[in-house]
């Protein structure tokens, strides 16, 4: 039998698994193929209860979305979204344009109403007015771009935020305003009207507003938008400092390198659907392995079959295979797909020997260290990459056109 441990862990089937990861299509060599399109985040149902799910990292859940959906007319913007953000997480919400990130954040903040499902913040459902108000007063947020009164200066705008948050307008609040302005480096321009600010300064003021109430949970939608590289580094450092203080951060960003550096957990949305959720390290580990490239496209499926057979008999350390697209600019076989083998990396030579014994020779064998960017692109790019050769007639039949093609060899 093929060893299932790794994917079992990924699919939360591990009895003592601690960190949830959801993948769109599970591939387990020697096991049952998971049904495509079904959310495989284990204990999804149990999340609705008050008790933390079995796979929870032992921290309270700050934000939970339960079967959340939003339709704009007939257009589904978000569908059946089950997210969980734990206390202390720096949680990255990723997805291409139009994937439903901002719609999700808007629903989390009560700006728009879900069509189905619900948002639970600090254990309170957002559908209740009073509880929503109480929960939102514990949150700092920037959604889309920062929004302030253009004719007011930074201090006055922050005074407005303090008013919205229900803070008393006294000397202590003024002192706190000064403090956050200092934190974001806006003190010298504190008396200038907001309309005179550059995009980066507006973003800084947005961050200052998010920090003003010393929230327990901060929602940042593209916080580095408009910032120069130094500003981006500062924001990253700031997020790190917030995390050190135990503040939970929900971050939406396109800058995947940044997300990889600061986030502990991520969720990836595509076309309004959650396609992956889990710890960054584990997600990336799942994408690492031994990468095989073949000069003949037919060899790809043959190699997969050989490895499947071997996994069942002589090579139990072989855990899974899947077809992957090469990274942009990297070498690729004529069909444009590579075979990623989930196996200990020191077994690369043995894999090559297994294939060679059956007359299949890989043109390339190498260790693959996945990046979040590559993982993201694999999950979210719906169309084949431009560099893919059309000369691989079997491929469309073998691989459905959706993204994140993971396949299991014939069982």
């Amino acid at each position, binding site marked *: 039998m093929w060893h299932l441990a790794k994917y079992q862990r990924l699919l939360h089937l591990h009895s003592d698994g601690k960190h949830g990861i959801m993948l769109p299509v599970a591939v387990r060599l020697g096991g049952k193929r998971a049904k495509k399109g079904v959310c495989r985040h284990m204990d999804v149902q149990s999340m609705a209860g008050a008790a933390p799910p079995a796979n929870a990292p032992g921290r309270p859940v700050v934000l939970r979305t339960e079967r959340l959906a939003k339709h704009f007319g007939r257009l589904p913007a978000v569908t059946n979204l089950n997210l969980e953000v734990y206390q202390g997480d720096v949680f990255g919400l990723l997805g291409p344009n139009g994937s439903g990130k901002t719609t999700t954040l*808007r629903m989390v*903040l*009560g*700006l*728009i*109403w879900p069509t189905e499902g619900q948002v639970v913040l600090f254990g309170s459902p957002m559908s209740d*007015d009073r509880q*929503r*108000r*109480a*929960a*939102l*007063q514990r*949150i700092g*947020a920037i*959604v*889309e*771009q920062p*929004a*302030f*009164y*253009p*004719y*007011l200066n930074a201090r*006055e705008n922050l005074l*407005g*935020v303090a*008013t*919205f*948050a*229900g*803070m*008393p*307008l*006294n000397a*202590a*609040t003024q*002192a*706190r305003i000064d*403090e956050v302005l*200092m*934190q*974001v*480096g806006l003190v010298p321009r504190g008396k200038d009207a907001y309309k005179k600010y550059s995009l980066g300064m507006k973003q*800084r003021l947005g*961050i200052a*507003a998010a*920090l*003003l*109430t*010393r929230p327990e949970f901060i*929602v940042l939608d593209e916080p580095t938008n408009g910032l120069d590289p130094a*500003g981006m580094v*500062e*924001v990253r*450092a*700031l997020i790190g*400092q*917030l995390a050190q*203080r135990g503040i939970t951060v929900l971050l939406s960003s396109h800058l995947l390198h940044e997300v990889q550096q600061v986030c502990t957990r991520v969720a990836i949305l595509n076309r309004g659907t959650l396609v992956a959720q889990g710890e960054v390290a584990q997600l990336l580990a799942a994408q690492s392995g031994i990468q095989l490239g073949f000069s003949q496209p037919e060899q790809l499926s043959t190699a997969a079959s050989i490895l499947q057979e071997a996994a069942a008999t002589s090579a139990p350390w072989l855990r899974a295979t899947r077809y992957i697209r090469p990274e942009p600019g990297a070498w690729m076989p004529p069909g444009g797909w590579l075979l990623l083998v989930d196996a200990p990396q020191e077994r690369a030579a043995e894999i090559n020997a297994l294939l060679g014994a059956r007359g299949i020779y890989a043109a390339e064998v190498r260790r693959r260290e996945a990046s979040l960017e590559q993982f993201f692109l694999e999950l979210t790019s719906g169309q084949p990459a431009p560099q893919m050769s059309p000369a691989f007639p079997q491929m469309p039949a073998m691989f459905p056109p959706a993204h994140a093609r993971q396949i299991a060899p014939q069982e």
Partner: protein
Amino acid sequence: MPGIPQKSIATPAASGGWLGHTWRLVRWNVRLARRRLMSKILLSILLAGFALLIGALLLLYLFISSAVTSSQLSSPAPTPISTVQQGEGTPVPITPPPGATGPSQAEIQQEKQQFASLLTFPEDFVLVGGYTTFLGTILICILAGALAGNEYSFGTQRLALSYGVSRAQVLAGQVGALAVLALSVAGGMLILGVLVGLTFGPLLGGVIPTIPPAGLLQLIGFWLVVSLYLFAYALIALLLATLGRSTVAGIAGSLGYLLFESIGLPIIIAVAALLSGFSSTDFTGLQAFFLGPNLSGLLSGVSQSPLDLAAGGTSSSGGTIVNPISGLQGLLVLLLYCTAFIGLSYLVLRKRDVTT
């Protein structure tokens, strides 16, 4: 960014209940209105217009006074204006009949007194009230449309909602701020009226009556009604700005309605009367369904108070203001309209996604 200091100031905890928080939002909205350049321009227009009106009245008064003076100087007796040759005899002067060349001294004097009373406290309240309900209404519609519409265009409503302000509080904050602004504008203008009346009235020969405590209450009632007048139209602007999610919708819509009531409605009634063969007075009942005529009815009711006070607390003999719609009816219809405007705005806001 320097980052989070190790020892930072304790954040003041959120304080106050729903009402306390809403009152802070009202104050915040008033502050926003005060800080706008547009508000300053609108206030300047209102004050400049008032100054022009007073100036024009003073000039008219002076003109009439000079007419009276010249007529007094030239005529202890009627002046012959021509002679007629009667045959061979001497010319005989012909005296013009009284009133043939213009108003009599008594009429001019009366007109002069009327101008003086217009600028004398408390009768000048009627003038100030009329001016405020005309120009003030237009200006407060512009301000209200901008106050509500800009929350969408700036995206600041999103900011408020994301910090736990409920939609009801957003609306209550705006409605409360408009009420404060209406009271302030009406109050400010009436205070100006008091100053003008106390300054120019005695100078022009007017007599300022002693106002009894009950009279003060009447004047306060007048102030409240003028404020209500402004507030009702401001609510139209608020509703339309909320519906249209824009400043333009609020301003254009409310001013359009104002124009319709002032010009369109009388024209429609006249045309309807013409086509149906009835008298236009038969259609007066139609007006009772609209906001403006009811407000005018209410205002007419309270406008009697300053006139009565000027007449020494009794019902004044002259200048009685008559309106087919009674003050009570006007008040009831006004309250109904205000409730409808606020209720509709809330329904729109409650159901709506804030995506801008």
